[in-house]
């Protein structure tokens, strides 16, 4: 374990991610797993309601999605797997046990390679297993002042994949990079939306801090309730500082416990003492026969592996030839990447398209709160605009203004240009406008001739205004210099 340069402490971070799978139906019953917009308690059957005497049956698609994920994370797929009961009493768990996997998960011993600050890190994946989600709870107080908790059972029994990392991360930045890479993999595998805000990708973090000159112990703090990459980063940074302070006050090691991230105050708050694994009294789920994961089946799943984001990113940089930061931005947003791929399909300058997407399109989408697939300017529309600029019918400045008009009105570039006119490149026409500007602005001319070169910029502005932005900026500059020179 390498030490961290923060004055004598090393940080150990491991992450547990729960990802909801994009199956049609739930994990062990035929209720829809697309319940997000359904009214409470309407996507429920006796199985996911946890009634006695029901018989759960394994959703094959969920198993295959989990194995596919494990393969993408370089895991070994054991020959046998089974489900187990994890027993604990909490109202969101209808049966008071959760069907999960204990000692024979679907995937074990993988890794995920990430690059943080230019340093390559191989982060271990302990296991990937499958379990069922719990009911959603709402907490409140009624008219008489009595506190209550409410249950919406729709989420109960939805397939949930858990990905457990080795405690290999040493900084909050590494943890964030691991999470973003993992999120991208799940998205590109089409196994999960991996949307953190919507709860489809939930992260719990284990973090401990140890003096560099001592042993690394077993106790750790589990941090929960982080619902964005940013909050994971902030929570881990906070927790690192807090635990260092515990050591500094002579009270180390910090107590093993669960702490909740509190976004508003930017702190973690103690929740309860950590329950030890044996408290869950795992035993084999008697209702579900074990699974044999034979080679033919696993090979068949492996054959469906799409191009993984890390491979795609390398291809964008090395083969397509765009800048690394643009490639990363496109990879992190698959819709944006699809937009880019469609746009570049019929256009020879990918970097130029990337510039437009990461600059103008992303800004316009952000302002409008829209996703790339909702963009009023489609990939073909953008290319039409770029071609107008390539043929000098509009200037670069005009193109950016036209883009905004296209985005706001949904009109085509050709239509807008037909109305407001093409770029003026005609020498005589521009010269005329330049002379007029010189005539009307003797003070600026005098300033220029007195050595204030920035006065030329004022004259350029006047010419652009008179031509409604259509004059070719390079020509205007040349001609002003020529006329005043």
């Amino acid at each position, binding site marked *: 374990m390498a030490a961290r340069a923060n004055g004598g402490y090393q940080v150990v971070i491991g992450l547990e991610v729960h990802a909801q799978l994009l*199956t*049609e*139906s739930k994990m062990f*019953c*035929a*209720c*829809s797993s697309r319940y997000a917009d359904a*009214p*409470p*308690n*309407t*996507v*429920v*059957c*006796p199985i996911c*309601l946890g009634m006695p005497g029901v018989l759960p*049956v*394994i*959703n*094959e*698609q*969920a*198993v295959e999605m989990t194995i596919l994920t494990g393969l993408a994370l370089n895991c070994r797929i054991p020959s046998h797997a*089974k489900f187990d009961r994890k*027993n*604990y*009493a*909490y*109202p969101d768990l209808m049966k008071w046990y959760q069907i999960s996997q204990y000692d*024979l998960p679907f995937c074990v011993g993988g890794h995920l390679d990430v690059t943080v600050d230019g340093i390559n890190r191989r982060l271990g994946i302990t296991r990937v297993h499958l379990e069922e989600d719990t009911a959603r*709870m*709402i*907490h409140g107080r*009624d008219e008489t002042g*009595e*506190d*209550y*908790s*409410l*249950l*919406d*059972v729709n989420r109960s029994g939805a397939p949930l994949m858990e990905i457990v990392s080795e405690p290999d991360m040493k900084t909050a930045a590494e943890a964030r990079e691991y999470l973003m890479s993992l999120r991208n993999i799940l998205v590109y595998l089409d196994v999960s939306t991996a949307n953190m805000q919507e709860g489809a990708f939930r992260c719990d973090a284990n973090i401990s801090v140890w003096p560099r000159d001592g042993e690394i112990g077993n106790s750790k703090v589990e941090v929960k309730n982080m619902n964005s990459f940013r909050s994971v980063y902030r929570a881990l940074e906070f927790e690192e500082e807090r635990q260092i302070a515990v050591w500094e006050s002579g009270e180390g090691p910090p107590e093993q416990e669960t702490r*909740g991230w509190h976004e508003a105050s930017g702190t973690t708050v103690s*929740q*309860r003492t950590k329950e030890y694994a044996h*408290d869950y*009294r795992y035993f*084999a789920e*008697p209702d*579900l*026969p*074990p*699974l*044999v994961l034979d080679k033919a089946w696993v090979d068949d799943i492996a054959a469906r592996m799409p191009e993984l984001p890390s491979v795609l990113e390398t291809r964008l940089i090395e083969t397509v030839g765009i800048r690394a930061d643009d490639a990363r931005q496109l990879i992190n947003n698959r819709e944006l990447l699809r937009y880019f791929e469609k746009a570049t399909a019929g256009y020879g300058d990918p970097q130029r398209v990337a510039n437009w997407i990461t600059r103008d399109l992303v800004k316009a989408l952000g302002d409008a709160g829209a996703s790339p697939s909702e963009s009023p300017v489609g990939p073909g529309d953008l290319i039409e605009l770029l071609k107008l600029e390539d043929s000098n019918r509009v200037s670069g400045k005009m193109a950016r203004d036209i883009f905004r008009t296209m985005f706001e009105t949904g009109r085509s570039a050709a239509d807008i240009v037909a109305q407001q006119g093409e770029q003026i490149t005609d020498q005589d026409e521009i010269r005329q406008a330049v002379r007029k500007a010189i005539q009307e602005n003797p003070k600026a001319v005098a300033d220029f001739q007195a050595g204030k070169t920035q006065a030329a910029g004022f004259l350029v502005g006047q010419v652009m205004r008179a031509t409604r932005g259509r004059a070719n900026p390079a020509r205007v500059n040349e001609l002003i210099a020529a006329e005043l020179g």
Partner: protein
Amino acid sequence: MLDPEVVEHVSQLARLTLSDEEKDKMRVELSKTLEHFRALSELDTSALPPTAQVIPIENNMREDAVGDCLPKDDVLANAPRTRGDYIRVPAVLKAF
């Protein structure tokens, strides 16, 4: 004989409130049950493959297809209390 603390711990996990008499009784009965399993575990099973299931079935899975759910009124029918369309339970601290 089981430690009283173990009985206490197990009853807490099961959310059972036991009287002192019941705890003493459980201590005796649970110890006997455990003794039976201890006897079973003395068997030499090293030549047997691990068994997670007694039913000789493997890979029993279903196709990922959506079927019918229960009407909401049926879902809520067994709930001791409801509020709106939700099952109402005693307040739990969010932090457990």
